[in-house]
Structure formats: structure tokens, C-alpha cells
């Protein structure tokens, strides 16, 4: 389903990724672990083409990842970045609407159901600056989930989540992996243990 072949990446003199190879299939959760600063986020940025790797290629269903098919790969950033000028609902729907994934009504229904699940129903019309750290993180996760990507990458998804929300996320990951390949970057050993099917260790 998704494959990384000989990926290398440097920032100036700093070699961050060197000749990385891994593969992840539908129904699998791949965990990427390693000490802080080793290049985990950089790898995810390369996967979604936000950074260009110096060498190697990624493949999605046997096709090289490029401008066209990269949008089938989702990423939840380490610092959950919501659009500052949009409220929660608009943040959730803007991409869904743009890609016309489903009808507006259905999109709203899906978004609302996720919000309910994560206990955020009362924050629908709040702006990002009015949310707590964990609330922002959950909204960013929901936004990625709504897009139904083929591969979904999470960068430290539980960094601001309490136990209950973490369990909820784990349940969701277990559910979506049936249709999607999932990549999780985290320092949270408990999380890794509970969801990961395989592991890549960096550094």
C-alpha cells in the first residue's frame, strides 16, 4: 500500500534521514519511534511532500507519490495547526467541502458525530484561540479523519490528550486501519504498545 525506498534528507550539513526503507499495508499501524530531534517529523513532512527528500521515493499503491496523489495521504501535525480565522466547524469542513468528498449535509453530520465522541459538541463555533491544547489537538485529528485518506499519519497525537481521549483515539485508529494504512509517530510508549503492528526505530 505505502512504501518508502531509500529516503535521505539533510538540512544543510545536518543529515537527518539516511537511507530509510519501510512499508505499511492496509490494516496495519506502523509506529515510528526515536529520540527527540532524530527526524521523525521531517520524515512525515517528506511523506506528504511538504519537504522534498534529497534521495529516494515514496510509493502509494505502487505509484510514486507526487503532486497529484499526495492528497490521498493525511497528516496530523505535531503542533495542531488550525486555521486561525475559521471556527471549529469551518476548520473541519473547509477541506471536505473543497474536495467535495461527500454532500454538505453528510459532512456536517459526520463532523458532529466525531465532535460528540470527543466531547467537543459545545465548541462548534469557537475559534482556535479559544481552545485548550488538547481540544485543538482533537479538532486537528477529526479534520484529518474526515478526509478519509488512504494513508493517515499522526505526529505525537496524544501529546495533550488525557487518558480517556487517548483511549478514544486508539479505538478510532483500530477502526480506521481496516480501510487505511496508519503511521504514528510518538514518544508515548503506552500508545505505541496499544496500537502499533510494526515499528521503525530511528536514531
Amino acid at each position, binding site marked *: 500500500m505505502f512504501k518508502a525506498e531509500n529516503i535521505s534528507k539533510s538540512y544543510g550539513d545536518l543529515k537527518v534521514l539516511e537511507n530509510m526503507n519501510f512499508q505499511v499495508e492496509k490494516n496495519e499501524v506502523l509506529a515510528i519511534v526515536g529520540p527527540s530531534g532524530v527526524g521523525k517529523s521531517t520524515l512525515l513532512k517528506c511523506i*506528504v511532500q*511538504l519537504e522534498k527528500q534529497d534521495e529516494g521515493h515514496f510509493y502509494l499503491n505502487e505509484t510514486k507519490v507526487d503532486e497529484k496523489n499526495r492528497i490521498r495521504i493525511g497528516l496530523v*501535525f505535531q503542533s495542531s*495547526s488550525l486555521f*486561525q480565522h475559521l471556527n471549529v466547524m469551518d476548520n473541519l469542513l473547509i477541506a471536505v467541502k*473543497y474536495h467535495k468528498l461527500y454532500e454538505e449535509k453528510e459532512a456536517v453530520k459526520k463532523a458532529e458525530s466525531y465532535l460528540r465522541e470527543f466531547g467537543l459538541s459545545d465548541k462548534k463555533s469557537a*475559534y482556535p*484561540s479559544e481552545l485548550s491544547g488538547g481540544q485543538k489537538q482533537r479538532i486537528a485529528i477529526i479534520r484529518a479523519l474526515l478526509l478519509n485518506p488512504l494513508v493517515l499519519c499522526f505526529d505525537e497525537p496524544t501529546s495533550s490528550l488525557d487518558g480517556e481521549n487517548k483511549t478514544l483515539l486508539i479505538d478510532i485508529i483500530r477502526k480506521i486501519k481496516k480501510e487505511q494504512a496508519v503511521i504514528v509517530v510518538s514518544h508515548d510508549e503506552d500508545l505505541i504498545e496499544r496500537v502499533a503492528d510494526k515499528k521503525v526505530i530511528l536514531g
Partner: protein
Amino acid sequence: MINMLQSSYPMLLQGLGQTLFYFIITLLTSSLLGVLVTYLYGFRRMRPLISFYISIVRGTPLLLQLIFIFFGLPYFGITLDRMTAALIGFTFNYTGYIAEILRGGIQSVPQDQKDVAFVLGFSKSYTFYRILLPLSVRNSFPSLSNEVLVLLKDTALIYALGLSELIKVSRTLANLYVSATPFIIVGLIYFTLSIIIEKVLKKIEKNMRKVTI
């Protein structure tokens, strides 16, 4: 002064009408085109051309631009009437300044906002229209307001094309009455207009700021 006002108000009114006409049309055209130019600046290949355009606009006085369009273009076989020449000149000029302000606003949009738009797969135009432009306008609103208020007064330059507006009327009246009072009157008219425009702009700014960053 009251006396002077009474006998010259038709002229003042007409001058005011002209000032507002050129102000409003230029504001509309150059805002729209300014946004367009800012958008095009996002394409690497367009940059040299746009930079060149901005250099011309900022590198020469608006007055000379107007004079060139009106008196210079006829030598190249293009003779425009006064109104068209004035509107083209103003739009040409203000589009450049507004585009430059918006470019600045976009540069100060935090990188993470741009990254998210990219990862969500938005096209360049959608990112521009839905993310960069709104944040940029918010960032640079005071500078844009400056520009709007300067435009109001720059319309005075149409005198060079033989058109008549407030300042010109005040000069004519000053000459007629051999008095500086018309300048004071016109100053007050400008001030009143500006205060109204400023109020409107502040209201818009406040509405945008409700959503804090």
C-alpha cells in the same frame, strides 16, 4: 466664509462629486487588481514581471504617470479622453501599492497555516482566496487604510489632466476671491470625508479582529 460658501457651493459640490467619483472607482478597480497581482506573485515565473511593474509604479511620481498616459501616449497613437486616462493612471498606480501591501501581509502569515493548506491538498488559488488573502488583509489592514485615505487626497492630481476636483476648485476660488478661506473650507470637507471613511474602516478592522490570532 458663510457668504463665500453660499455663492460657491455649486462649484464645491461638483468638485466633491468628481473627487468621490475618482476615489470610489479607483478604490474598486485597484483593490480587485491588487488582489489579482498579489495572487499572480505566487507564481515564480510571474515574479520578475510583477517586480518590474512595482518598480515602475513606485519609482515614478503618480503625477508623471498621469501626464505620460495623457500627454505621452498620443505620440504612440493612443489618445485617451481625460476621464479614461485619469482612471487608468490611478488604477495602474494604486494596484501596485495595494499589491505590495498584501504581499507583505501574506509573508507574515505564519508558516504553519500555509503548511496545513498544502497538506489538505488545496489548490494555489483556493489557498490564496480562503487562507492567505483573509489573513493578509487582517495583518495589513492599517496599511491598507492608510492607502485608502491617501487615495482620497491623491485624486487631486487629476487637475493635471484638466479635470476639476476639490483642491482645484479651492484654488480657483482662492484666486477668484483673493483669499485663503477656500483652502480652509476644502480642508474641512476632506477632513469630514476622511473621518467618515476612517470610521467605516475601523469598524471593518474591529470586526476582523474579533477573531483574535
